[in-house]
């Protein structure tokens, strides 16, 4: 267990796969909550990228501090929480007006 024998690219590939799955969810799902979940997948993928790049970098950017990647990830988690709060509020609002949670049921505006 001395040191990770895991290459950086494995983490990146995992993140890319999660990102692609999230993108698929965003494009294929119509339920707004499902879309929200898919967005969470994509944000998490970006987080893994950030932390992996931070951990494997030899000379972290001097101006961004020694734990830049972790700090970025923490703020991304904050953003994700805020987005979910806003998203759920909007979904409930629309649900009360349409009685549907599918994005393409909201069609009062000619899209």
């Amino acid at each position: 267990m001395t040191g990770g024998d895991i290459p950086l690219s494995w983490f990146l590939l995992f993140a890319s796969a999660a990102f692609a799955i999230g993108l698929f969810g965003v494009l294929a799902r119509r339920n707004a909550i499902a879309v929200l979940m898919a967005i969470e997948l994509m944000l998490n993928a970006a987080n893994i990228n950030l932390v992996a790049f931070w951990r494997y970098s030899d000379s972290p950017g001097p101006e961004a501090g020694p734990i830049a990647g972790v700090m970025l990830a923490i703020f991304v988690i904050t953003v994700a929480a805020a987005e979910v709060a806003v998203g759920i509020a909007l979904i409930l609002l629309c649900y009360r007006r349409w009685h549907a949670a599918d994005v393409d049921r909201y069609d009062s505006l000619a899209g």
Partner: protein
Amino acid sequence: MPPSSPPPIDFSQLWALSPEILLTLWGLVLLLVDVGPLRGRPGSSRRKTVGSLALIGPIGVFALLLAPLVAGPGAGGGDPDPTLVYGTIAGDPLATSFNGVIALLLAMVIGMSMAWDFTEHWGAYFALLLWAAVGMMVLVAAEELLILFLALELMTICLYLAAAFEKDKRRSAEAGMKYFVYGSVASALFLFGLSLLYGLTGTTFLDGIRRVLVESAAATGEAGGLSGDLVGATAVLLILVGFGFKLAAVPFHQWAPDTYEGAPAPVSAWIASGSKLASLVALMKVLLHALAPWAGAVGGEAGGGWVLIVAAIAAATMTYGNLAALAQRNLKRMLAYSSIAHAGYMLVGVLAAMVTVRSGSSAAEAAGAVLFYLVIYSLTTVGAFAAAAWLARGLGRDDIDDLDGLGVRSPGLAVCLAILMLSLIGLPPTAGFVSKLAMFLEVLNADASARSTLLLLVALALVNSVISAFYYARVLRALFLRRSDRSPGPAPRGVSWPIVLAALAAVGFGLEPAPLVDSMRSAASAMLTITLPPSPPDLPAPAPVAAIPVSGGMAMQK
């Protein structure tokens, strides 16, 4: 404190961030006033009280911006380093002047909001407007990608919510929902691009990224550009998607018409002006400064770069926006497509700025022309949306036909609106003409290799301007040539003064553009020359070891 910690914050720098701090706190005050002293009062009276209080926010920002001028030069300190708080935020002329512009737009939007009762929650509504302004100000000043991302999120989250604030209207909730879904997907894509860029360069600072890219291009001996650099290309593409969404550039524009039409007119105005203004400035910072080494060539034989992508987006954006606007009946929807088209024009300007930045002859002029155009566009479009607010107050809807006959009933405002439309078309003697001319003339300063491609784009933009004249002319026709028995009634003060102010600005800067052009040029040159502090706090060492408790390290023995 571990040795990795940077020095503590210099609190004197907070003065430069005072507009943001003022608006943040003032938003909280409004929120508390609305749920506290005004609790139980009817909505319309709270609207007037909270709205008037909210106006103090932008006025306070003006006071703060003017204070150093009144106090005389040198009072604010002639700091040669324009960055604040470890180089993450710029306190340069760009940030200062755009703080003023954003405050002005905010005041106009607040004025429009006081026109009619579209919500019950005035405290929260005005607080969200103010906080969105904070996001825009931080976005304009951001020198680091994390802050840029967070400011973008702050701004858009406030706008998602505000867009859904109109009570009793399904389309408002739908506007917020669509804006939210597209927006959060775009920010997820942007964030993934950001993470790749961080991995490639090891830093999130705009100037740091530029430095790394320049160094690596020098080390590999390749010219700039993205050819063969798949990761870099993906990162740039994802970041462009994020910005393209905020700007409503074409492949990512689907939300814009629905949101602009569905949201209350002041919120639509705020999205169309402030959000677009701040995002475009941030885009220029990222593209022209940080990612400039990846620009690639436009027309030459060298490897491609983001200029080709941006050129394609610009061409598609202005063409689609103008053609789609022709078919619209709703005023706000028409303005939405017009704002899409204008985003295309601005991207052409960004391209011209990039190409001239590279040849180095007139870097600040080209970027300054884009900023000038941006400011003029924002002012005129807010004025145009104020007309929509007027209609929504008087008639409850906002189609172009509802403007019928206003030329007879309110000739003054109708003339002002006509001026705004002329400015949006880009006809002399309005500022829209001058700014468009200035921006497109910069193309002539481009590299010889790039000039033909750019001239093609400019020709396309001119054709598009001609097309756009048709749909703006429909507004003019409705104003002056049609008669109608339904009238929105006299315009409230909150609607009339933004229209008059925007029209005055359009005419004034059209006849005498020099002051604004000069200040925008200085802002642009500040934006393009900003660098990290010369000696970044890269390593706390070398410091005498005796000062650092290092276990197992070397200690000085004397």
